[in-house]
């Protein structure tokens, strides 16, 4: 009789297939070292592409006191990977957008025209935009308020006073609920304000003053950007971009360079160092120049933070290559090549020896750095948290603000008031770069100890790491200065879009500074002039 049976040997033979069938697909999901789905041969090898700088935008019109610019927010097909078409959003059709250079005391008006498609082709949302000039103490109606949205087909003139100290700023989209997608697709660019004090310094200028906008991206099979926000925790790409180029190599002369580092990632933090162990001289932070340069070998840069650093290549032998690398931060997903940023190749080329010094004193301390805790009228506490899968600040979200007809506020300092804010992140699972609009603040302490050396300058974003508590000290405007409502939010843009945002109000809220209604965007063709 032929009975059903299998002996041990038969079982072992079949188990080889069984083990493969169960284990391989699971391991493929768990051990992926790349986020991109595009064929790896289409990704450039790190340090093989040339470095580029975004162009400087020329004003379309100037008058005695103001420069006027036109920026079009456009969907276009660009090339980030060689030979691969990638649909992008960009200011004037480029990623990152063009740099705007402004001077202290001379105003700018930037006309932002939303020419994006009526609906995002794949995500299905309406790509409204609200442009925030990050680092500029603007009036509320020109601050890129979440809710002051320009729909596709609308335009708005943003007025910037440039009444701040010299600094590196950036303009980026802040459209409510879709900032992360829009910035990830390219709506970000640098904006520099210079002033007489900075211009008088012998620090690197001109060709030796270089913007480094660092980001990350992942790519789909067809070259499109790949979006995965990991349940609103953040988007992490496996390709590091510097000024829109994957892991570029920059040729440098044997002298000092000033780099304006901006972390424009949605969610990735960086801990930067040079491969040869050489230090950075940090000369400026978010709010402008430090009073004295700080020397560090490791520089933590959270999303939206800006640091201006000087690197001296004078002692490097021509032909030698140095890499700017990323040691990574906790809770950023690392892939095979996210530890690499860019490369410097030192040349023997002749160079301009002028402005090749970092003086031990860069200037008088920024007003925010002169504040004393004793000046504070109020001390407030802010807890950054995630409860029931919702990102919150003191258990409040932007939805609460919207539901309250934009009335709920976290604080209501009067113009000129000084306050202490203690910000705490009790979680071990994520970090939060907290951005306070309008103000420059001083980081008084981090976990009860002095802040990191690079934080000893004026800031508008503070990296609140896992389990950390930071104390901030700030003055809100000045008597007769700007007043109204401004946002506070986590600059992990996925957190921000999922409502980790609240607001405060300086002085009175009045119709002439209402962030939504005082200067609303308009439909139709914008006028030729301003």
């Amino acid at each position, binding site marked *: 009789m032929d009975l059903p049976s299998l002996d041990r040997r*038969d079982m072992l*033979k079949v188990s080889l297939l*069984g083990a493969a069938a169960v284990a391989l*697909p699971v391991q*493929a999901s768990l051990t992926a070292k790349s986020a991109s*789905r595009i064929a790896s041969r289409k990704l450039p090898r790190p340090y093989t592409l040339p470095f580029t700088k975004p162009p400087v935008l020329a004003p379309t019109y100037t008058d005695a006191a103001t420069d006027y610019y036109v920026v079009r927010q456009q969907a276009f097909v660009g090339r980030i990977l060689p030979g691969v078409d990638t649909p992008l959003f960009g200011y004037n059709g480029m990623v990152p957008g063009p740099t705007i250079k402004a001077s202290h005391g001379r105003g700018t008006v930037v006309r932002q025209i939303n020419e994006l498609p009526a609906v995002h082709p794949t995500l299905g949302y309406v790509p409204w935009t609200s442009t925030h000039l990050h680092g500029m103490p603007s009036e509320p109606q020109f601050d890129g308020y979440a809710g002051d949205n320009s729909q596709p087909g609308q335009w708005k003139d943003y007025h910037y006073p440039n009444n701040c100290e010299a600094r590196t700023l950036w303009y980026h989209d802040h459209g409510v609920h879709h900032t992360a997608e829009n910035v990830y697709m390219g709506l970000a660019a640098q904006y520099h304000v210079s002033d007489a004090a900075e211009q008088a310094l012998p620090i690197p200028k001109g060709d030796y003053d270089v913007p480094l906008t660092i980001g990350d991206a992942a790519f789909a099979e067809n070259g499109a950007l790949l979006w*995965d926000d990991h349940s609103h925790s953040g988007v992490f790409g496996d390709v590091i971009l510097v000024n829109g180029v994957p892991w570029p190599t920059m040729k440098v002369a044997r002298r000092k360079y000033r780099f304006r580092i901006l972390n424009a990632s949605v969610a990735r933090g960086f801990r930067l160092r040079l491969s040869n162990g050489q230090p950075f001289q940090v000369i400026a932070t978010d709010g402008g120049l430090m009073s004295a340069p700080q020397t560090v070998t490791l520089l933590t840069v959270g999303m939206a933070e800006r640091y201006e650093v000087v690197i001296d290549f004078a002692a490097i032998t021509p032909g030698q290559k140095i890499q700017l690398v990323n040691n990574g931060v906790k809770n950023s997903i690392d892939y095979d090549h996210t530890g690499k940023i860019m490369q410097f190749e030192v040349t023997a080329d002749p160079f301009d020896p002028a402005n090749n010094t970092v003086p031990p004193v860069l200037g008088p301390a920024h007003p925010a750095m002169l504040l004393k805790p004793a000046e504070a009228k109020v001390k407030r506490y802010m807890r950054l948290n995630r409860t029931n899968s919702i990102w919150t600040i003191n258990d409040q979200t932007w939805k609460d603000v919207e539901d309250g007809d934009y009335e709920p506020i976290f604080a209501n300092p009067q113009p000129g008031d000084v306050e202490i804010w203690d910000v705490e992140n009790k979680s071990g699972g994520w970090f939060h770069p907290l951005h306070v609009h309008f103000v420059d603040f001083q980081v008084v302490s981090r976990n009860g100890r002095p802040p990191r050396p690079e934080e000893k300058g004026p800031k508008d974003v503070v990296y609140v790491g896992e389990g950390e508590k930071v104390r901030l000290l700030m003055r809100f405007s000045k008597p007769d200065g700007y007043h109204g409502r401004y946002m506070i939010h986590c600059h992990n843009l996925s957190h921000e879009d999922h409502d980790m945002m609240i607001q405060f109000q300086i002085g009175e809220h009045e119709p002439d500074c209402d962030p939504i209604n005082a200067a609303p965007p308009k439909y139709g063709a914008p006028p030729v002039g301003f």
Partner: protein
Amino acid sequence: MTATVPTTPAGPELQDGPPRGHRAWPWAAALSAAASGGLHIAAAFDHVGTHDVVVGFFLLVAFAQLGLGVWLAMSIVAGLRPDVRLLALALLSTVALVGLYVVAHTTDLLAAFQVHDGGGGTHHGGGTAPQGTSTQTVGPVALGLEPVATREPAGPLGAATVATEMVTVLALTALLPARWRGWVTNALLLVGAATWVLWLTGVLG
């Protein structure tokens, strides 16, 4: 398609009271096939609203597996030995399904049929998201000019289904005539070895 291998005619062989271990194989085949069918129905529901072809395929497979399970169970209850040609066909089909699963989750060859081709908690799929809400996505989404699908990561449901199907493979092999088993297990050994070789050489992964 023609069957060239002589088959064992259906008959009352199991009525003679084979040892308990031998009776277990037919039931294992029937139950695991039915369970795989149930899991495929669950998978179909899991994919509703993402890709009609995938849902249709899962339902087709589910009904075939449920049918196989019922047929095997009826054969056992009736004391009949299942037709060997049908057993062989079921075995071949199940191995093919396992292979499809491995290819789908370790390569991009079948990405066009995978899910996640749109945003939204229930996948917007290129439609218009409600205004005033943030984007809800599950897994990677290509931000192209038109929806693009990507490989779906293997999840617990898929792993459970393929494990159940391997029980079916094992049990169906046991039900084959003794002179077939050696040939079939050798073939399965070769397929398994080839799968690992493909993984080690980077073709799968």
